[in-house]
């Protein structure tokens, strides 16, 4: 009886997936044929079939760029820091907001934290440069405490941290909402039972809220690993400068500057492919590890 049902299920499952599969096949897998450019000296007027194949030359070119090492390290550093903070900060905020009793206050806080998400780096870049400039507000506050003015964005000591934290500030609303949705999904009877047992708010958070959100946290962690080579191109382009290249130049900005020089389609594609392969691998591995340790399969 049960077996029979399972078989019957599958047809409808396939049918439900069909529209999504078609869209993906056309619009995601279709263009992937273009990845062949990574192995070509691509010439648009000759097309994919007429362009010369160069094997792994494009990759060799990438890896031998003198600044590749620095940029690679900076990319990992910035992206990893962002990945961790993109989870930790919104999680903390979600937990704290959950403790506030006034519904109206919760609503106000929630709404405001999501706001910076709407502003593009083209706008925010200018504002941040102003805030951290020598006569900007940060230095004015430091001056109030008798500190000398610091050129934050001209200094290798601070620039990278400013890049990391301003992005956390801008994006924290997004994950916070996912976490809040997860929290509201927790069965309130669990809390009632716990408070009858005399557990305080902190204990409830540690023993009920966080475990209940574990799948969501895992999910976001694994997905964020896929972005480990994306350090935030738009943002860095606005905030970096030659004085801080050693700490802020990332793969994307490096390739961007090279791209200015000529139509190097092959190299740009090779770069993209390199990043994608690492991302997919990381996601697959971390998905497997998460399953090993928690028995929860994300995908």
């Amino acid at each position, binding site marked *: 009886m049960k077996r029979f049902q399972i078989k019957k299920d599958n047809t409808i499952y396939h049918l439900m997936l069909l529209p999504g599969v078609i869209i993906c096949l056309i619009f995601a897998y279709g263009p992937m044929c273009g990845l062949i450019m990574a192995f070509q000296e691509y010439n648009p007027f000759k097309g994919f079939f007429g362009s010369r194949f160069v094997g792994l030359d494009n990759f060799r070119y990438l890896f031998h760029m003198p600044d590749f090492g620095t940029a690679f390290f900076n990319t990992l550093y910035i992206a990893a820091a962002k990945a961790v903070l993109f989870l930790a900060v919104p999680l903390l905020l979600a937990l704290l907001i959950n403790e506030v009793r006034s519904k109206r206050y919760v609503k106000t806080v929630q709404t405001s934290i999501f706001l910076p998400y709407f502003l593009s780096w083209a706008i925010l870049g200018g504002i941040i440069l102003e805030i951290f400039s020598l006569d900007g507000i940060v230095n004015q506050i430091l001056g109030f405490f008798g500190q000398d003015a610091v050129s934050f964005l*001209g200094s290798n000591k601070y620039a990278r941290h400013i890049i990391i934290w301003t992005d956390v500030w801008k994006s924290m609303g997004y994950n916070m909402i996912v976490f809040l949705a997860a929290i509201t999904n927790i069965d309130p009877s669990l809390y009632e039972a716990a408070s009858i047992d005399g557990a305080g708010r902190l204990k409830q958070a540690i023993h009920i809220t966080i475990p209940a959100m574990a799948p969501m946290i895992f999910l976001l962690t694994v997905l964020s690993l896929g972005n480990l080579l994306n350090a935030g191109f738009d943002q860095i382009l606005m905030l970096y400068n*030659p*004085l801080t290249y050693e700490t802020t130049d990332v793969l994307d900005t490096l390739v961007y500057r090279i791209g200015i*020089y000529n139509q190097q389609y092959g190299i740009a594609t090779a770069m993209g492919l390199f990043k994608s392969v690492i991302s997919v691998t990381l996601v697959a591995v971390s998905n497997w590890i998460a399953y090993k340790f928690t028995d929860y399969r994300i995908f």
Partner: protein
Amino acid sequence: MKRILSTALAAALCCGMLASCGGDTGENTGVANKNYDPMGKYETPVTVNCVLGYGDPTDKNVPKSTTPENQAFNRLLKDELNIEINYLWTVPESQFEQKFSTAIASNSLPDIMALDQKNFEYLKENDMLADLTEAYKYASPQLKEMIERDPAVLESVTQDGKLLAIPRYSDVRGAAPLLWLRKDWMDKLNLEMPKTWADVENIAKQFAQNDPDGNGKKDTYGFGASAKSLSPWGFGIKPMFMPYGSFVDKWIDDGTGKLVSGNIQPETKKALTELSRMYQEGLFDRELFTKNEDQVSEDIISGKIGLILSEWWFAEFPVPESITANEKAKWVCVEIPPLQEGGQPTITLDRQQVLSYYVVNKNFKNPEVLLKGMNMFIQSETTYKDVLTAENGHVWSWCPMIYLDPYEIDTTYKNVNEAYENGTPVTSGQEQEKLERMADYEAYKKGNMAWDSKKMFGGLFARVDKQGGWATAMKAVSDSKVVYNEFTGASTRTMIDNGATLEKLTEETFIKIIAGEKSVDEFDKYVETWKNLGGDKITEEVNEWYKQ
């Protein structure tokens, strides 16, 4: 707005018909074409596929309903020449480069285009450009005269006897850097006009330290500049190397007929030493390394910067904005003084300055459309001045074919001044407009009239004033020792492969030396690295080109 690319693709039918009418380009539309009639009308409509990057019209009289498609010029093209412009796409100007790169990458080029040098070289290399030798015969004598004023320019786009582009270029003298000063600040601090570079340094020091705006706050800088990159679009630091005889990013003749890169010469080390010292002494805006052009111009407008090296157009932007914000602001410009009193100022210029390359897709059957369109364009202020008006929907920067006299500013300068002094006639509408505002401008200069931003005094200050931008630039070129950038060829193989790496190395090293984060001795190491990273190879390639 100005990068107008256009292209024409004769609709399949038209092509077929025209092609069948005659073998060679010259004959296809009968009588007129045999004589290469510059304004010969086609018997059947010729459709031309174009693309356009454009901005809002600056002239307020242009009706709001005007679009690139229905602009006056395109209607006139249809009426007079039977040419129909079809836009494959139109984008706001800032998106043009992106959109056009995509068009190249997906092999969907228009038929007539205006290219930058990079794309011109690329399409040339890939044999996508039509030979315009035959089509060029349609150029009217007036147009030919403009194009051939500097014969070297046309030569530079001819390859194996094929004319591959109609280059729009500008007078290189316009690129001469000038020293711009806030005269009101200098008067307040009792400073004299500088005679030597040391005087300039002194002014920078006074401006930075002695509160020239008298607001009691230490909120003004010495030199203003943008050094977020070595080559910003304006307000860069490269001109500051020139007094020391150092020419960054230029290929100069070393006197023996060999080209060398200005970057690695001992003079550049000297310049870096001095600039670094000046930075230590607080003569610069301390934040020049994090500021881009936008931030620098905001500083200029808000009255934090009163000393900057820039070109003649500085009078047109941002000087007017600066005066609008503070009517006491008064700017003057002079040539950059030499290091020693009595010495000769030194500047560097490019041999030629091509603004854009008008080319025709080699698959397009009527390349002469480009020339005919240009013939018509250059008559916009004469023959067609009553049709091509702003009220009628004419926005010159939107036109699919544009040709402006490369020496237009110089001509304007001479004609308007002469007309103002001797009452001689002017030759164009825009000269007439300037002439009409001259009396008010003179009154402003004498202090009898307030600055009126509606009267566009900035344009007069930049182009007509005898102490203004253009006049001073001309003086600078004739007074100075001019060192030319002799390399006018296409990017060489190694430039393409290693250019970005070398550029980053140069930018990082120079800026860190000036900021004091690296000692000047690092320069020698830089020279070694530069050579090893492909600099030597590029030098070889450049010299090979130079020999030809």
